[in-house]
């Protein structure tokens, strides 16, 4: 079974629009939205949710004021400044480490498991999909990402599908690390801007760190041909295949507004044709 994860470093380079288009071209894939923090793939694929499950994240400390003697031990020991002078825990600051719970001399601190999101198994017109929603301002996004990827793999096994297409989050931190570990390959979608190049280089080295093969697609390729050439040079030096050069094309925005993939909306547009070429290259890529 293969899993291709689409990442970018920089946000807004077109990951989700491409994943939606690939979903339509792939036919027999399971789709996985690992951008649990600000997921958007469902806005195009309009999933019909079959099963919704709570995601239990970490625990949070809760001080029972009737038992608290105000001794100050918890405040002294908390390294996250999560406990106020009036002995209330700020859930946004609480790391869920349990140190206060353990050391409270009168056992006045409860430590409940928090539900911090949901994950879903859905049906879409492009095939089955696993996606999730992390609660607003919640943590543990990495664990939720690992969970949706695991569920996508199981679903692929159950339904006899041998490919998973995963929409990844921006950045290089915890949710991205959780998105790419063990993947067959990543597609890095970049754009010919100084920020796009800078961020691509960081996420490429992250993929190298975890030994995941990398392909690169340049979106809005013709926005700055000089910068696009720089991306090509970097990829050549680093031995990375450039599998697509997608022109700047308003068809992506139009397709999104009509809740369609770019292939569905206008299959003959330059954006759709270039997207199809990227997909053909991905299909032929061996990877891990």
């Amino acid at each position, binding site marked *: 079974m293969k899993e291709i994860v689409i990442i970018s*470093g*920089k*946000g*807004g*380079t077109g990951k*989700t629009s491409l994943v939606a288009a690939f979903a339509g071209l792939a036919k027999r894939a399971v789709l996985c939205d690992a951008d649990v*923090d*600000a997921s*958007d793939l469902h*806005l195009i694929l309009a999933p019909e949710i079959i099963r919704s499950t709570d995601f239990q994240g*970490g*625990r949070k400390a809760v001080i029972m004021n009737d038992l608290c003697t105000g001794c100050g031990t918890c405040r002294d*020991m908390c*390294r*996250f400044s999560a406990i106020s002078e009036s002995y209330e825990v700020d859930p*946004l600051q609480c*790391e*869920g*480490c*349990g*140190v206060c719970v*353990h*050391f409270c001399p009168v056992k006045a601190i409860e430590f409940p498991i928090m539900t911090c999101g949901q994950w879903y198994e859905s049906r879409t017109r492009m095939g089955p999909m696993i996606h999730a929603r*992390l609660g*607003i*301002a*919640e*943590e543990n*996004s*990495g664990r939720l990402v690992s969970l949706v990827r695991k569920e996508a793999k199981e679903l692929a096994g159950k339904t006899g599908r041998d490919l998973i297409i995963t929409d990844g*989050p*921006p*950045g*290089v*931190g*915890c*949710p*991205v*690390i959780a998105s790419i570990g063990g993947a067959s390959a990543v597609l890095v979608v970049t*754009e*010919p*801007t*100084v*920020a*796009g190049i*800078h*961020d691509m280089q*960081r996420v490429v*080295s*992250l993929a190298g*760190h*975890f030994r995941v093969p990398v392909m690169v697609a340049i979106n809005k390729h013709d*926005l*700055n041909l000089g*910068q696009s050439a720089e991306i090509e040079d970097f990829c050549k030096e680093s031995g990375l295949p450039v599998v697509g050069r997608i022109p700047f094309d*308003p068809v992506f*925005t139009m397709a*999104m*507004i009509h*809740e369609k993939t770019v292939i569905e909306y206008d299959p003959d547009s330059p954006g759709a044709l270039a997207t199809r070429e990227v997909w053909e290259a991905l299909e032929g890529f061996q990877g891990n």
Partner: protein
Amino acid sequence: MIISIASGKGGTGKTTVATNLALSIEGDVQLLDCDVEEPNAHLFIKPAFDEKITVYTPVPVVDETKCNRCGACAEICQFKAIVVIAETVLTFEQLCHSCGGCMAVCPEKAITETGRELGIIEKGSAYGIELVHGKLRIGEAMAPPLIRKVREYTKPSGVTIIDAPPGTSCPVVTSMKGADFVVLVTEPTPFGLHDLMLAVGAVRILGIPFGLVINRADMGNQAVTDYARREKIEVLMEIPFDRHIAEAYSRGDLLIHAMPQWKEAFRGLYERIKKLT
């Protein structure tokens, strides 16, 4: 005054707003780039960095000669960062949240702390403003502790602009908490609107006054504007789609330098923010 620039969706123009706003305000201005996973402000401000520090977070080291394998450390650790297997204690420092629980609970005082590198912080200045940014080490998962370190550079007076990371989870909350005002930058597309609604939820949890900047305002539909009207959220500024703006951005040129007429608009944005705080 601290103004945090956030967005929900990535690539909507946070850095454009943060950098151009910072350079359009008179007086003592500082820009903190808290998008430590992918900091970009320096690509536009181009400062000469004159200070660079490496930031560490404490992680445990076990002195096997003192350890009696009682397992108290593994029991208190919520993050599976320390486990006792047969006759040895293993630490997984990349999983450690630096709470210090294992060290505090160890009856044999066998645990001390060393540092795991989170990344670096660089400080420099250009165009009369100070820029401080964090750069998360490649392979490091936890951005919030580095963001907190960047925020320690906040000057007590003057204006501090924070360029926040995308999303709505802990790194974003860490970048917005304690700000006097949040500018949410969005684009008028379904993705822009969806992620904006999540970002609005996060700002409202924090109880910080906020307003919108709509970027590429003429390239999409009316849904963001309608939402803002319904929710009584003020649209502070609109930036149209303009190939010149996109090309200047692609080269790393500031909008107010490529098209100086924008300086007045960013000054106006600041004046509006002052009135709303």
